[in-house]
């Protein structure tokens, strides 16, 4: 357990991430449209499809659509 805690502490320090309690009334900035992980769904889909047809990497973003006989 000690080892697990130590590992978590190291990861926390290395990542520089620190979580704080954010009350619902303090989440106004997070709700702005430019703060969405995906701000433009259609354009995101098109750019993903283009990258998928020209590069070998896939995955990470989830969803999963149909393949294509991309040239």
């Amino acid at each position, binding site marked *: 357990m000690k080892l697990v805690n130590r590992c978590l502490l190291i990861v926390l320090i290395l990542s520089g991430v620190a979580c704080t309690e954010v009350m619902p009334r303090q989440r106004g900035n997070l709700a702005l449209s430019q703060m969405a992980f995906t701000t433009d769904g259609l*354009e995101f889909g098109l750019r993903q499809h283009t990258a998928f047809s020209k590069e070998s990497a896939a995955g*990470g973003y989830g969803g999963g*659509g149909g393949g294509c006989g991309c040239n």
Partner: protein
Amino acid sequence: MKNNKKSNIAAQLTCAALALPGLMQTASAGRVEETYNADFQYGNYVESNNRMRVDIFESALSAPIGKSMTASVNLVEDSISGASPVFNSRDTSGKTVQVKSGASPTSSCGKSICELRDAISSNLAYFFDKAALSFGGGYSREHDYASKYFNTTGSLDLNKKLTTLNFGASVAFDEIQPSPSIWNSRPADFRAHKTSQQYLLGVSQVIDKNSLVQSNMTFGYHTGFMSDPYKWVTFYNGNVSSDFQQDKRPNERFEWAWLTQYVRHFEQFNHAALHTDYRFSTNDWGVNAHTFEMSWHQPIADGWQVIPRFRYYSQDKADFYQPVFAGGSADYTSYSSDYRLAGFGTLSGGLKFSKEINELQPFSQLKFQTGFEYYAHKAEYQLGGNNQGTFANFGYYLITASFNLKF
């Protein structure tokens, strides 16, 4: 006091867990839509060297059903024309050159490739108080390729909705029936199939009142026909061509990807937002890839926003890729010279503008967006360098324009 301490520790541990590879994701649950949405998008994709050109027309509609459900449908048509690399050969000086499918005066568009892709997909999402579930499916068709797919996602809010766990699964069934072509040596009745599965596990987390992080891990497994039915491979004994065969790839691929996204708000810059993504992916064909993307969403005034962005991508070559092969095809179990399986890197950058108009009756919101992006694919951009030469380098630009109505 003791309870506060405990919850602080729990929050810190949750946060630490987010930094561990594999516990994070992107497809957030979303919230129930309270408006009807109609989106239309046009895209214009043009490659350099007179290669491919694609015009994309897309529309999407979504509607609330009761207070807890959203249904959506999406239609796409891609109109594709142009030429594509077919194989590599050596010129008289021994230098590798790329050979493209040429013009075809007898085809419907005058190019060697004239294609339409039509796709339809739909989705139904149900929102609980602290969870969401969605089910979707779609169908995509080209004259030589058809794909049907199904997916489901789930999400669960924890820790006063500061943490969201995300899950997803999708499966696709593809059928390939190569068209008659001088580059297709298979019989006219040849048909092949491919099945793909992908599973996603992720977490999104509110870090503080100005920043969010999300991380996903996906596992993919593909089985079936994965060769390109129009690409060829040349084999050489010294500088003399000894064999010429159609692209032949393994019929199984396992892939794994880990994506982390970080979004930060800057109040002092008129509520601008910084987006950064990093993805590592690997597969058992030997391709490891890194993708780094960054964008800055800058509100200006009167609902205008300007969004500059930058992307870098680098991949290693597949184990069975070579620009041209030595010996004969019998010496190899798999072989491909497809530029997409080579080692290379890409740099792209673009600029996008959006304008939002609120409360213009009868709409509650209208949004117009347009963007331009240029993409350069070069062997020498590969992380750690690459001395394969410039024969496969190319670029493309992508212009998009869209409008969204909410009512």
